[in-house]
């Protein structure tokens, strides 16, 4: 698309001179055009955003102040749902389960991912094969992953107990009340460690090489380089990963549904699982369901804000 004389507006000779009111009119028109264009380009996506995200968030607040069922009438009950929440066994167990789940899975995911990334960033050949293999579990839908793990954790013929027997131990009931939540968390580690490993690899490759050369010349050991260079340099990246991985961990649902059906008992019933149960498996629980949802949403919003502050700090600081 070259500059074409036929399309070009005639170039004014010398400076363009306009009367002041003419000038104002033109710039007002241009500004108006900009407003219309901007909103026109934004509108299709923004409408979907408002209808299916902003309104539901507000809707959750509205529902959380009411009692009743999905189909029947609901009435306003104020903050009653929130006041009752800690005493409703199912709801508080769901919150506890989700927190424990995140507390087990997030540190394992991130420490594992960081370790893999440190190795992966420094190997000279074959990196793409490892990347492919390590990332593959990330692309497995939770439902399918749970199905595979259902298999592996089977008491009689599963892979896990096969290994345990091979080592001379007694078969373990992996999905029993003692271990189910841990197994669910480990399953999450399997699915997410590759994602964060590759995320960290990109960050490590981006670190300034001169610092490492200088450190090596000074005779710093590999551990010292990790402790005093890599980790401090990646502090913000790691914190970002902690926040995002935690937010994702709080949403666990599909693997719990397929692997353990929330059980045994309510041992693996998570927050979203409980909301779903209250919606379709119970009557008159819609207010409580919304109240737990709102707790989850507010938690996620707070974590998002922490992260935004952090990123703003980065832009201003180093």
């Amino acid at each position, binding site marked *: 698309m070259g500059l074409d004389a036929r399309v070009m507006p005639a170039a004014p000779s010398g400076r363009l001179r306009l009367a002041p009111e003419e000038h104002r009119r033109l710039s007002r028109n241009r500004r108006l055009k900009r407003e219309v264009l901007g909103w026109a380009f*934004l509108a299709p996506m923004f409408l979907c955003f408002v209808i299916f995200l902003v309104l539901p968030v507000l809707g959750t607040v509205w529902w959380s102040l009411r009692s009743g069922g999905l189909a029947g009438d609901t009435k306003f009950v104020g903050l009653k749902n929130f006041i009752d929440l800690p005493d409703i066994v199912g709801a508080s167990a769901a919150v506890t389960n989700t927190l424990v789940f995140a507390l087990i899975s997030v540190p394992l995911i991130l420490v594992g991912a960081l370790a893999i990334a440190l190795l992966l960033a420094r190997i000279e050949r074959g990196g793409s094969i490892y990347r492919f293999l390590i990332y593959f579990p990330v692309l497995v839908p939770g439902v399918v992953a749970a199905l595979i793990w259902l298999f592996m954790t089977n008491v009689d013929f599963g892979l896990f107990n096969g290994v345990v027997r091979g080592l001379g131990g007694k078969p373990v009931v992996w999905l029993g009340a003692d271990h189910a939540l841990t197994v669910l968390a480990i399953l999450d580690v399997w699915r997410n460690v590759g994602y964060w490993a590759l995320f960290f690899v990109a960050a490590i490759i981006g670190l300034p090489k001169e610092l490492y050369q200088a450190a090596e010349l000074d005779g710093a050991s590999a551990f010292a380089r990790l402790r005093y260079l890599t980790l401090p340099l990646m502090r913000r990246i790691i914190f970002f990963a902690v926040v995002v991985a935690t937010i994702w961990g709080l949403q666990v649902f599909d693997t719990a549904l397929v692997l353990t059906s929330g059980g045994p008992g309510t041992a693996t019933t998570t927050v979203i699982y409980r909301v779903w149960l209250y919606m379709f498996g119970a009557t008159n629980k819609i207010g409580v369901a919304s109240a737990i949802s709102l707790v989850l949403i507010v938690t996620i919003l707070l974590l998002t804000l922490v992260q935004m502050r952090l990123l703003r700090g980065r832009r201003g600081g180093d």
Partner: protein
Amino acid sequence: MTAEQHARIRVRQRRRREFGRHLVLGLVAFILVAPFYYVLLASLKDSTEIFSYPPKLLPIPPYFGNYRDLLWNTGFLRWMFNTFFVATSVTVLKVFLDSMAGYALAKIEFTGRRLVFLLMIILLMVPIGALIVPLWSMVSGLGLINTYWALILPPLANPLGAILMRQFILGLPRDLENAARLDGLSEFAIYWRIVLPLIKPGLVVLAVIIFTDQFMSFTWPLIATTSDELQVLTVGIAAMRAHGGANYGLWSASAVMSLVPIGVFFFVLQRQFLARSLAGALKQ
């Protein structure tokens, strides 16, 4: 010690470290991939072989009954079609809408754009799973439960794409669009004929992100549909697990079959897939 010896020792040391790294990474990769081999193996065994101990490590002769069962006696093909139909629709629509919104946010100075962007960032992480109560009542109020619309419309709300596209478009040099403007191109033509071709790599990455997210999505499709005809892959498999009784052969065949398409995509578009991991970094 001569310099030559010294150098040789260093090379040897480097090789040994490299070998150590390969050893650990190989082990990690093996552990991460082993479940896939395990399930592939199981899918090629009949029900007595699955339960036998010690397990056979090679499925010879392979048994294809599980796959036959899956393809002809369950709704698997229908689930697969639904997943692909919904994921493709969402991807095409969303790439288009998000790039337009990203263009507006990056290049057009209109009132409220900062506020819109801030709102998108704030709500970026709110998952659809936390919104199922109001979403369900809204979508069912619109009479859309058990339609493809119910599966396609709500995912369009996710602001990640618009934020990414804004970032990509901000990186383009201003001269290009100014030249185009002098050429008398309309704003839409600038977006369509200049900006879109320039951010093609970004569009592909975005498409991969949206498609895989849709392929894996479960919570909303579970709630938005009750009829068998509209079940997507993840919902169909969960229903099979919940209602069909324990049929490990069938389950493993369905796991393998649902991983084939995503595995092929991954193999072909490896770079774009791996850029998914970087999308988080891009957000910064």
